[in-house]
């Protein structure tokens, strides 16, 4: 794992795969994936797949039991060490964009025997995977390191030109 510390970072690493081209085949992983699902707050981010490919020797770090050297987590391995790989390598084929929609919640609850009831949504999957790894590896992990915020984003965070005028660090609080 230590070897990953010597990763070289080239530009902004993208996080969001929504608009990603399908890369369902093992042979041809995409060089990069551009993600624009949060375009209401940020400009589109480009995930450099090649770069990440170069810093790890095991695809299963991200792709569970689709590719790579077998599942890492013990509890997944119980079933998936021997199982077929997943049908798709594309995150969004399993991690849905709207995990908390009525339809999805009902669908998950409809089958009482379903095992994977606690699957994160797409945005959660990216961040939990990307951010947590970045933070653990000492890689850039501020929001702005990956996301270039748009004007609407600044407005949302009341930041940049929308920062509160003369805001005191301590609001009224009693």
């Amino acid at each position, binding site marked *: 794992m230590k070897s990953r510390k010597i990763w070289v970072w080239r530009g902004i690493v993208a996080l969001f795969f929504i608009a990603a081209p399908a890369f369902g085949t093992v042979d041809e992983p995409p060089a990069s994936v551009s993600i624009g699902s949060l375009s209401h707050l940020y400009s589109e981010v480009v995930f450099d797949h090649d770069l990440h490919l170069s810093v790890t020797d095991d695809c299963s770090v991200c792709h569970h039991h689709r590719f790579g050297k077998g599942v890492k987590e013990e509890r997944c391995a119980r079933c998936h060490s021997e199982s077929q790989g997943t049908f798709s390598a594309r995150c969004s084929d399993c991690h849905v964009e709207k995990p908390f929609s009525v339809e999805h919640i009902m669908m998950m609850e409809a089958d009482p025997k379903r095992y994977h009831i606690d699957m994160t*949504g797409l945005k959660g999957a990216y961040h939990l995977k990307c951010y947590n790894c970045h933070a653990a590896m000492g890689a850039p992990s501020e929001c702005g390191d990956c996301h270039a915020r748009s004007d609407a984003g600044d407005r949302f965070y009341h930041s940049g030109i929308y920062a509160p005028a003369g*805001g005191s660090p301590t*609001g009224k609080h009693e």
Partner: protein
Amino acid sequence: MSGISRRKFLKSTVIAGGSAAAAMTSAKSAFAMKEFQGYPDSMGVLVDLTRCIGCRTCEAACNKEHNLPEPALPFDNLSVFDETFHEGKQKRRTTDKAYTVVNRYAEQEPGGPVYRKIQCNHCSEPACLTSCFVNAYKKTKEGAVVYNPNVCVGCRMCMVACPFGIPAYSYDSALHPEIIKCNFCYDTRLKNGKPPACVEACPQEALTFGHRKTLVKTAHERIRSNPGKYVDHVYGETEVGGTSWMYLSSVPFEQVGFNTTLQHHPILDNTKSFLGIVPMVLGIWPAMFLGFHLLAKGGKTENKESNAGESCK
């Protein structure tokens, strides 16, 4: 005061009865509440503290969703985590300008720092609701505890009662002061089948939205399948009778600002020993004291002492 004629007696009873009726209603509905176990389809949110990174996006989303006043500092300014109040005894809390805030805890702990988002927990049997004498609160079937400013008198009993110290009050308004608290985005989202704004905005999916029943299972499953990762407790599963918002943590809950001394049954229960005597007092007192009166009139006045002390036994 001499004779007590039938007519006088009846007149008295009516006067006493008027107030008795009100008290009866009060006691009766308190008992009707006894078996209430929360709505079966109540929604909830599971907050996983191990996922939260303190980005404050939820605060920003809530502010936007509800058109709340401009914050004192931008929502991406993390210096707010260093703010303390009352000689360092308190971190940030919900105010009349913020339905939710995130605080940083356990900086020194191995797994720290840990961030904790606070907002109304939407209790199954809310103390704010049951203590309100004008019924300003409502627990919707979706699980939200919502407040109606149009009947609120402003006694602030709910603020006293809320075990989590959530409701704030717009003290500065002379004409329209009201309680201000998270409403689970009920009006704008929940009732239309959409998740709350903060849940939708959270990048880390630290907030998981779903049926409360399911979330309880999910929470226990996360604890079970990640041995050693979590404290073996789902905060809010039973606290004060259960809350719709529940929490998982990797550090002991009391180190992240949770009150771990709360009772595990509804706050309302505490009033039951008193409400239990209400019907008795209403039923027994009139006959008993009229009896005393008749006895006393029967010439038994040798007891010269004030009987005041006896009325408390």
